[in-house]
């Protein structure tokens, strides 16, 4: 842990022109601090504000100047106070000078670490760079910045600048803006600094890396063009999903008085023989088996090791091919990046030459990779050139895994031309669609491309960490709604919609959607969403809000029957209606019918998961309302029905998901004991294989 310890200084512009975006800055910075509390507890963070009314920093005491720069928090190990401090940044009253702030920050780091300490040091600047920096005493501003940047490089500090621009910046003095851009750019050229411009709240949110993961190579060795020519390369992950954290299971069995209770739950797996369930087989008494037809063939690990596929560690070129031969949807996994061995200039040149040649001729390379010795499989993938447009970054390749013959399922689909004439669009419709595709543009020229993956954060993770912080203060807090800013990426941008209202309306007018009259069971859900918005800009936003609300706040929309699309929500909604006692009865009745329909209409079990969801909801509802008999009778009935109709696989499915009857312990009115409840499905399905 401590090995990758990082010291981070946040330099935040809180001047008046930044006030409109400060809420986002607060959110992203506190998220960063919250994640550090979990993943890198020993990191140190300091916060420096500029553009403030007051002045509080050491340099001003020592040499004077450096006004309106406040060290809000000295660099120290992250703690809860930091999160709170970042959640409520003071609003400043003066124009901030980012260069002053950078110097104050560097001063702190140099004083703390000296020149020799090679620990990771990072400065992160968030500003709109709209205000001019002061003239320097000697030389031009450029000279001053160059001197600072050189110092920064000398001390091994990294810098990340996030510059808020575009519609977020408001109107500003163009000359100052350009001057600042030039100055900030010097940093990114002279040091290992990153400079990004963001134009929307979402991308501001996504621009700051909230979690630091030190990159690890997955392969170092030769890229073999042939047996004669090899290039030294290192391979890293380019994308890798940041997963939702896996939480530990909590046990409440320890007495509340026990202060040292860990509350951990250990999960234990025991293997018992099918015939004699009392016998537990120890790990050494077990052997792996694979299915071969109806039989299982046992294979001892030693035997397996002797015969299994054992490729040697290597990365070999198979050849080049036209880029159009590799369709984009064949990319199978997360992406790797091949870079030339950083210390090997010749290798860098070789990679650069190939990448540039490939890009020019629109070719890609097919390679066969075995990353490690002892790896039991090979991957075949495609190298695509990543030619750097910056002077100081080297060329590299992206690597994507391609499928093997076994991985592709050759399903046939009807050709669009063979469809009914009524399904073929006419010219007018096609034109309307063309306009829609053209006008609903997320990457208009001259503006920031909206929703770029590089700047779009994961809303679920943000929500989780915010909830965690909330719960640490109020243990019984409810899940907060999705962040307003991030919610915008789950629905169309109202601004884009209102700008293109005429195009959208034209598109709508040209097509007609109709509910299939023969499908009685289908609900009107598909078309239920409000038709065309009557007032400007209101239409879609409302609909989105409404459908999201119907999940979050079930009491808002009154549901009168259970639909096909969201039966669980509808059911819960109906159960919670308090405007009449008859609703509970109706909800249970309708839900049963819905489940029956799902099971009956299921094609190859495609509805089973949904039916199970409904059953679980029904079960929960029946327990809540103390109506266990309704559920238990229904489950009996359902199973009988399945057995009669050759749908045993549904019972198996339920058993595998451990759905049980409602027992006495769960609802006092039930006549079913715990054991009966558990064994019910197992018993009703005697045939196992």
């Amino acid at each position, binding site marked *: 842990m401590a090995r990758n310890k990082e010291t981070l200084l946040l330099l935040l512009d809180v001047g008046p022109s930044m006030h409109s975006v400060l809420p986002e800055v607060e959110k992203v910075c506190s998220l960063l601090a919250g994640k550090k509390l979990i993943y890198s507890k020993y990191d140190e963070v300091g916060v420096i504000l500029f553009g403030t009314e007051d002045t509080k920093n050491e340099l001003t005491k020592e040499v004077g100047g450096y006004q309106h720069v406040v060290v809000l928090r000295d660099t120290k190990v992250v703690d809860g106070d930091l999160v709170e401090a970042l959640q409520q940044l003071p609003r400043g009253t003066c124009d901030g000078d980012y260069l002053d702030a950078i110097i104050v920050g560097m001063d702190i780091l140099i004083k703390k670490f000296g020149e020799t300490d090679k620990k990771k040091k990072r400065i992160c600047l968030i500003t709109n760079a709209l205000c001019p920096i002061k003239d320097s005493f000697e030389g031009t501003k450029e000279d001053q910045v160059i001197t600072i940047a050189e110092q920064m490089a000398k001390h091994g500090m990294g810098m990340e600048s996030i510059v808020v621009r575009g519609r977020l910046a408001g109107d500003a003095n163009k000359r100052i803006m350009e001057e600042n851009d030039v100055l900030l750019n010097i940093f990114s050229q002279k040091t290992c600094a990153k400079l990004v411009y963001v134009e929307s709240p979402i991308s501001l949110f996504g621009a700051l890396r909230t979690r630091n993961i030190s990159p690890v190579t997955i392969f170092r060795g030769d890229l073999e063009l042939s047996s004669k020519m090899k290039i030294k390369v290192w391979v890293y992950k380019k994308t890798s999903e940041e997963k939702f954290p896996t939480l530990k299971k909590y046990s409440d069995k320890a007495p509340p008085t026990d202060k040292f209770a860990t509350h951990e739950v250990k999960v234990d797996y025991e293997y018992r023989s099918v015939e004699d369930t009392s016998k537990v087989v120890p790990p050494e008494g077990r052997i792996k088996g694979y299915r071969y037809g109806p039989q299982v063939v046992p294979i001892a690990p030693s035997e397996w090791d002797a*015969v299994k596929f054992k490729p040697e560690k290597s990365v070999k070129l198979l050849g080049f091919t036209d880029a159009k031969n590799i369709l984009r949807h064949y990319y199978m996994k997360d992406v790797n990046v091949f870079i030339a061995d950083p210390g090997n200039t010749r290798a860098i040149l070789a990679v650069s030459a190939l990448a540039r040649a490939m890009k020019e001729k629109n070719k890609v390379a097919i390679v066969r990779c075995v990353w490690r010795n002892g790896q039991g499989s090979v991957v075949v993938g495609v190298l695509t050139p990543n030619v750097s447009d910056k002077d100081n970054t080297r060329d590299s390749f992206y690597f994507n895994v391609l499928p093997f013959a076994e991985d592709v399922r050759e399903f046939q689909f009807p050709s669009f031309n063979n469809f009914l004439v009524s399904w073929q669009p006419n010219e007018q419709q096609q034109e309307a669609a063309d306009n829609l595709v053209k006008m609903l543009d997320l990457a208009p020229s001259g503006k920031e491309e909206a929703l770029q993956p590089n700047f779009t954060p994961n809303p679920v993770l943000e929500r989780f960490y915010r909830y965690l912080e909330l719960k640490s203060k109020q243990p019984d807090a409810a899940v907060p709604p999705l962040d307003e800013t991030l919610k915008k990426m789950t629905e169309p941008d109202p601004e884009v919609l209102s700008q293109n209202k005429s195009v959208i309306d034209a598109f709508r007018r040209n097509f007609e959607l109709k509910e299939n009259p023969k499908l009685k069971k289908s609900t009107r859900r598909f078309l239920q969403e409000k038709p065309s918005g009557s007032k400007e800009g209101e239409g879609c936003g409302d609909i989105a809000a409404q459908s999201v609300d119907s999940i979050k706040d079930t009491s808002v929309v009154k549901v009168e029957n259970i639909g096909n699309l969201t039966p669980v929500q509808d059911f819960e909604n109906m159960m919670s209606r308090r405007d009449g006692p008859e609703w509970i009865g109706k909800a249970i009745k309708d839900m049963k019918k819905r489940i029956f329909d799902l099971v009956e209409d299921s094609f190859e079990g495609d509805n089973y998961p949904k039916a199970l969801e409904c059953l679980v909801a029904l079960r929960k509802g029946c327990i809540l309302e103390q109506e266990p008999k309704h559920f238990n009778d229904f489950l009996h009935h359902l199973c009988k029905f399945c057995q009669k109709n050759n749908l045993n696989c549904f019972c198996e499915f339920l058993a595998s998901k451990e759905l049980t009857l409602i027992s006495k312990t769960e609802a006092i009115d039930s006549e079913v004991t715990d054991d009966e409840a558990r064994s019910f499905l197992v018993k009703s399905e005697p045939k196992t294989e």
Partner: protein
Amino acid sequence: MELDPDDVFRDDEEDADNEFYQEKESTKELLVYLVDASPKMFSTSCPSGDQKDETHFQIAVSCISQSLKTQIINRSYDEVAICFFNTREKKNLQELNGVFIFNVAEREYLDRPTARLIKEFDCIEERFMKEIGSQNGIISGTRENSLYNALWVAQALLRKGSAKTADKRMLLFTNEDDPFGNIKGATKIDMTRTTLQRAKDAQDLGISIELLPLSQPDEEFNVSLFFADLIGLEGDDLAQFLPSVGEKLEDMKDQLRKRMFTKRIVRKIAFSIANGLSIELNTYALIRPTIPGAITWLDSVSNRPLKAERSFICSDTGALVQEPLKRYQPYKNENIKISVEELSEIKRISTGHLRLLGFKPLSCLKDYHNLRPSTFIFPSDEEVFGSTCIFITLHRSMLRLERFAVAFYGSSSHPQLVALIAQKEIISHGGQVEPPGMHMIYLPYSEDIRHVEELYSDSNGAAPKATDDQIEKATALMKRIDLKDFSVCQFSNPALQRHYAVLQALALEEPDIPETIDETLPDEEGMARPGVVSAVEEFKLSVYGDNYDEEKELAGNGKASEASKKRKAIADNAVKESANYDWDDLADNGKLKDLTVVELKYYLTAHSLPVTGKKEALISRILTHMGK
């Protein structure tokens, strides 16, 4: 109980248990092989690949045997029966003459193939004459008709299962194009009529009859004499028939061992376009990594299957508990408790629909914007009329304007931004290579993207870039090693093919494991062509210069050499230290356990063995290495 039935796209490894990957399928195939065993099948032969002559009977049998071996892996829930006709002995439920159903113990006549069936069928030839015997079953003067009997037996076998859920087929191997040729007059007409009627009856019951005729070298099988009527061939089909049969036979033999999946809809989703306009889509999984199949744990003594049982134990009290509904996350020196419901509430940030956000030019979709295999979407008019029309229109516009759609896919477990790419239909050689529709590509979030390239950016402002000459040489090299007709899935997975081969060898108790070919290795022969070699040399010279020494280059790189120097020092030291012990003596007297772990590691390092594990592991590793 944590329910996540929606979650189809967890990590590949975890997905093994997911129903999405389950082998069991509700539609299966029931197949009866009908093999003519008349003397004529044994007497005619044709040259096979390796100069040895094969009889028609041998061809049919080896074809079936190959097919069974593939089937047991690809579609093991399908059922088969192997049925000979024109035999001396009879074995069938109807006690009909001249029809013999081949079977092994613990198996019904029409059942899933077993290892035993395959194994015994492999040696059918040796036993055939003795146990089954060949005898022409259609003899003039009698009313015996073995072909009729065979059809009857097969049809009776295929009575099993409903026609709705199962695909029923008979596959007929014969080299006799005129089975009633030696019979004259009314009997012939009568026999032809009844046999055709029997075939028609079977077809009316939803059973398809396929013919695999075996032609003799000098005389082609004449389908129109009799069998055209039996299998219902007319007009153009008749002319096409024979050539296509040859391919079919080859196909049966050379099938890839590959688990087959029936086309099924993963999910039905609503795609909301704008202003409340929502169309209906089905999603399909066209590309997913195939895994070797689930592991079943067995008792190593009895080889009986074991059942895994999961139990939860409270670490504080040791009590057995039900799966708890609360989770916790350590945060600020505290354990924050979060219930399972709250967790799923956090993840639910949108309705389960696909919501269109806008369009971007295709160039905005970078090569690194990928996390998981894509999902295919195709429109449906089942519930909402007009969906397909809107989909087709958008599809066309997107193709023409070279744009993709960005949408938010609010699945309950994995809400994500996706790119929708329109794919036009591609047909080659009469078959559909790419179906028309859209592919949904899961986009990474900013947290998922790493900026590795910037890690080594050069602070002096200029990274080495190739010169025009070097690029030119690279282009020349590229032209030389060009894979012209590369198709993405042309390679089979060597690890998987090896797995299946081993499995088959073990199950059938074959003495040798058949060799599998690793198709993914580079084409050494092609690479050795003079043109390629000289292009490589020129490129090498252009980027590396003529005195490139890899070792020297490495030495210039301080970091790597430092680490390797250190490693070498440790190894040298270990060799020195290790020489101070009399290892043989220590091992023989069981005194190894008296040494410290550090001392044990001297031996291991000196002999470049792994040094991980507990002390006992180290000792046993040393003993194994010494051969004791």
